[in-house]
């Protein structure tokens, strides 16, 4: 789970979080008391559909603005350590 979430945890942290998560999930299991067989899920509370924008080019950020917050950069690029 920690790898999926990209979190590096110490052994103690792993123990603590496991315990806390288990408590919370047990609590969450209460939901199973409810019969939701024919109930549709609500992913969106607003009954909106088909919201679009037109195919027009708008303003870009200037490259300096784009890179201003970059922790590491090289020229016009963001720089990251090796992938593999």
């Amino acid at each position, binding site marked *: 789970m920690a*790898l*999926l979430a*990209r979190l590096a945890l110490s052994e103690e942290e792993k123990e603590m979080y496991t315990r806390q998560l288990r408590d919370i999930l047990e609590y969450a299991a209460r939901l199973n008391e409810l019969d939701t067989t024919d109930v549709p899920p609500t*992913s*969106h509370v*607003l009954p*909106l*559909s*088909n*919201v*679009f*924008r*037109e*195919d*027009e*080019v*708008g*303003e*870009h*950020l200037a*490259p300096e603005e*784009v*890179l201003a917050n970059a922790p590491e950069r*090289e*020229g*016009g*690029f*963001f*720089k*990251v*350590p*090796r*992938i*593999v």
Partner: protein
Amino acid sequence: MSGYEAVIGLEVHVELKTRSKIFCSSSTEFGADPNSHVCPVCLGLPGVLPVVNRQVVAYAIKAALALNCEIAGFCKFDRKNYYYPDMPKNYQISQYDLPLARNGYLEIDVDGRRKRVGIVRLHMEEDTGKLVHQGTITTTPYSLVDYNRAGVPLIEIVSAPDLRTPEEARAYMEKLRSVIQYTGVSDCRMEEGSLRCDANVSVRPIGSRELGVKTEIKNLNSFRSLQRALAYEIQRQIEVLEEGGRIVQETRTWDEAREVTLTMRTKEEAHDYRYFPEPDLVPLVIDRAWVEEIRRTLPELPDARRTRFMEQYGLSAYDAGVLTATREMADYFEECLQHYPEPKTVANWVMGDLSRLLNAANVEITACRVRPAQLGQMLRLIDRGIISGKIGKSLLEEMFASGRDPEEIVREKGLVQITDEGALVAVVDEVIAANPKVVEDYRKGKEKALGFLVGQVMKATKGKASPEVVNRLLRERLH
């Protein structure tokens, strides 16, 4: 083969050529300076939200219709969660369980047989940014990221595992490219990345109904790579099975240089994309009126156009196929016919000399300086005997380079064919006098010798003599 058959499915990504990206108004134009076509949304800054580009949906529907798909009445976007530095949000907005279109098909021709390949689904999603490495991805000490491409609209087209050979796979790709290109929603160029392909391949004993374990093959940069990679992988899998081994379900990369597929070893565990409906977007209700409106904008598609070319113009299947390979080429051809209605002649010139010039100069037919009207004009000049066919070839080159009218060039360069016998007789006699041995050969029965003499007359007249007249005169004079 060795009692095994291959089962191949292709996943194709096509970049749609809208002006702006799928979820923001940044430009999709190719080739800009790094990170110059980005905005807060496609950069994935904190707090931003996506808004769907209507034209992307329209283009996707158009492509789906061209592929005979059923368009969903209701579809939505989902988040596909995974981490990678070219993903600004570390999730991709895609479509999971309710895609835009399903159940289509594409008909391909392989070895004279027609085969229908099923298309399972077509959906919309956003593209990622680009990584630049020093050297290869495995040897580089660091990587650079450019987000210009992040958010460019893609459609993903998944075929059914109906393909059985690398040739069929290639035919499918070529046909798919042609069809999509005809609709105008994408340029479909593998070399530019607007058409990308991953292959899923497995093998099984002939006659078996079960599917073998499949591997996924990536890094296929051309149709040729696709074909070779599949051939290699099929062979590899057969060899593994025949030695009693098992196929590992994995992703492999095609190594172009060594012409082998290799395991891609990554730290990534089995992908759990944790799909869930995109809460920042609302669902799409696609009404039939909109679909029909888009259907009306579909052009005559490649197969139909090729058939018509064969029937209407009496062209061979091969010629019709070449001329309808791209919509632009077919349009050009038919526009030429408006000016010079002799299909076979036009076909020969377009497929022959003109295509040669286009390829050598790496120019698209749409940028060809020879306009259809001008080609027609040139062909009429030949018809009227004003220039010879041979002159026509070099005239075409000049037209291609300059874009000028043939009549103008002919006038300027004095290319008018010399047909006047009086003018030619003198030259003919000179050539006869200058080549006694050849004349003798001809009189002894060597037809080829005449050709040499004709050539000499042409040379002396700088190619302007009418070959027919010269031929006739020589024969007359030599008897």
